């Protein structure tokens, strides 16, 4: 009867030890929960990335991470975080939305863009045109959008971050085209929005309107959304057109420091976003049609990204804060040109 007794004493010893470890807080494996509050088009990207990160983190530390996702319009999501949605990390469409979180709710420092490389934007994207197969209206560049009889689909810049990129990209092109003549630029953008029959609330609403309801000749879209749309609905119906100039969109990510400090998951949250910059992270990014930062991934996915002249918000508009104030605030340029 000796072996069983020995066995039992060992079990007792082990369980005492492990409970001791638990009491002193040196548990063998921890469970972490992260809430990633993101915008609409990143659903597929983060579904795959979250699984990859959880695997990586378990291999590295033995801890399990469960990452929960919340998706919606970028502005709406920022507002939810300000109103108390406990996001550990935010991955939104534009820096302005995270600026507002920093400014209004003070959940992260004003210089949050220094948290990670490349202004905390691990991937970039741009604005492209999606047209019907064969491009029946011959749409090649921004100038074609204001031709009579061309119907343009974009979401509402007041409610959608992506739509603000669309609007500013058109503005940037017109500035170059009309040699900085503000009156003509304004007239161009007014004409453009006169050709818009439907302003959906979010980017996904617009792509449904264009692709499934069959409305419009051209859909202004995030590059990654455009690729996804082509993949989901078939390249036999739609095709992609790259304009001569577009904006470099840098969707930023940030750790919401005040929340993570409270939850005690600062390190995981940081590692999670850092992993976006790793080779595996960048590969997933490229796979979901975002332009990767790393050279290896950029080379691997080079074929799917047509070359285009890209300008930044900072160069053309002096940053998001200024652009927001001039164009989209109550009574701003967008309000003026859509009023008749």
């Amino acid at each position, binding site marked *: 009867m000796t072996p069983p007794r020995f066995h039992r004493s060992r079990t007792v010893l082990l369980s005492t030890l492990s409970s001791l470890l638990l009491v002193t807080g040196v548990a063998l494996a921890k469970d972490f929960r992260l809430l990633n509050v993101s915008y609409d088009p990143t659903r597929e990207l983060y579904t795959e990335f979250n699984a990859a990160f959880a695997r990586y983190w378990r291999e590295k530390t033995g801890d399990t991470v469960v990452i929960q996702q919340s998706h919606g319009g970028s502005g709406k999501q920022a507002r939810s975080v300000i109103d108390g949605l406990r996001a550990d990390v935010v991955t939104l469409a534009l820096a302005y939305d995270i600026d507002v979180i920093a400014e209004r709710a003070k959940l992260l420092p004003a210089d949050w863009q220094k948290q990670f490389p490349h202004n905390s934007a691990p991937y970039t994207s741009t604005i492209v045109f999606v047209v019907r197969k064969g491009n029946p209206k011959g749409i090649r560049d921004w100038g074609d959008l204001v031709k009579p009889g061309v119907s343009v689909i974009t979401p509402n810049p*007041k*409610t959608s971050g992506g739509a603000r990129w669309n609007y500013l990209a058109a503005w940037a092109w017109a500035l170059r085209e009309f040699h900085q003549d503000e009156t003509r630029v304004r007239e161009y953008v007014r004409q453009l929005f006169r050709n818009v029959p439907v*302003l*959906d*609330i979010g980017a996904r609403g617009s792509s449904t309107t264009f692709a499934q309801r069959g409305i419009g000749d051209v859909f202004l879209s995030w590059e990654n959304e455009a690729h996804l749309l082509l993949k989901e609905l078939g390249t036999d119906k739609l095709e992609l057109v790259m304009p001569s100039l577009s904006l470099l969109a840098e969707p930023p990510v940030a750790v919401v420091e005040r929340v993570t400090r409270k939850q005690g998951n600062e390190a995981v949250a940081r590692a999670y976003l850092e992993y976006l910059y790793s080779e595996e992270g960048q590969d997933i990014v490229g796979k979901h049609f975002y332009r990767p930062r790393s050279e290896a991934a950029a080379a691997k996915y080079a074929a799917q990204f047509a070359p285009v002249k890209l300008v930044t918000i900072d160069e053309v508009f002096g940053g998001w804060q200024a652009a927001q104030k001039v164009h989209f605030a109550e009574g701003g340029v967008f309000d003026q040109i*859509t*009023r008749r």
Partner: protein
Amino acid sequence: MRHLRQRSVLPGFGLTLGYSLLYLGLIVLIPLASTFLKTTTLSWSEFWAAVSSPRVVASYRLSFGASFLAGLVNCLAGLVVAWVLVRYEFWGKRLVDALVDLPFALPTAVAGIALTTLYARTGWIGAWLEPLGISVAFTPLGVFVALTFIGLPFVVRTVQPVLQDLEPELEEAAASLGANRWQTFRRILLPVLRPALLTGFALAFARALGEYGSVVFISGNMPMKTEITPLLIITKLEQYDYAGATALAAVMLVISFALLLAINLLHWWGSRHHAPA
């Protein structure tokens, strides 16, 4: 001091009224009051600017206009449906009777998605209407369709019980005095049905005014053209303009309250002037 209520042998007045008021206060009044409190952070001129900008006025026009038209159509159609359900026997009657309430129970997002899918030019109904030059989805007409759907049960459900309780003697007397069917309807039935029709209309109208979920899918949300007032509240929120959003909300709340008070007073007045035997 006189008592708040007349004497009664029944117990529980204090308890039930007290509890009702407490619960009403906690769930409805305090939260609603927060809207008005937030509005007071605006000066009068800021408030006026927020609730009377051209885009907002255009949205009132659409919200009130489409809700009014939808209420009117529901009045007519609701009367016909109620009449048919009470007076006639036909195949599928019980099913129809049960389904009339569906718009009330169906989530508005489902209604919005289903209606947009149907009435868009690629949809079952839109494909028929589009060649005739009628586009429904993404036009004010689409807003009207969604609001009609939402308000459908109300007139039917307020008129139905009145029609059921109607004494046949009234119509018989009219007929024996030589009135034809149409005269009987206009002179005898309509006056009796009028309060119920009005109530049903007001309920459908009030509900349509605030409707959001089903409308945003089908309306197209074009500034000055197809934006409803609840959407502008959301738009203001997206701009972090909480005070502006609550200013609009306060205007809508006052209108809702006034409408409902009017209905209740109408009932009260009606019951005083037609005191039960």
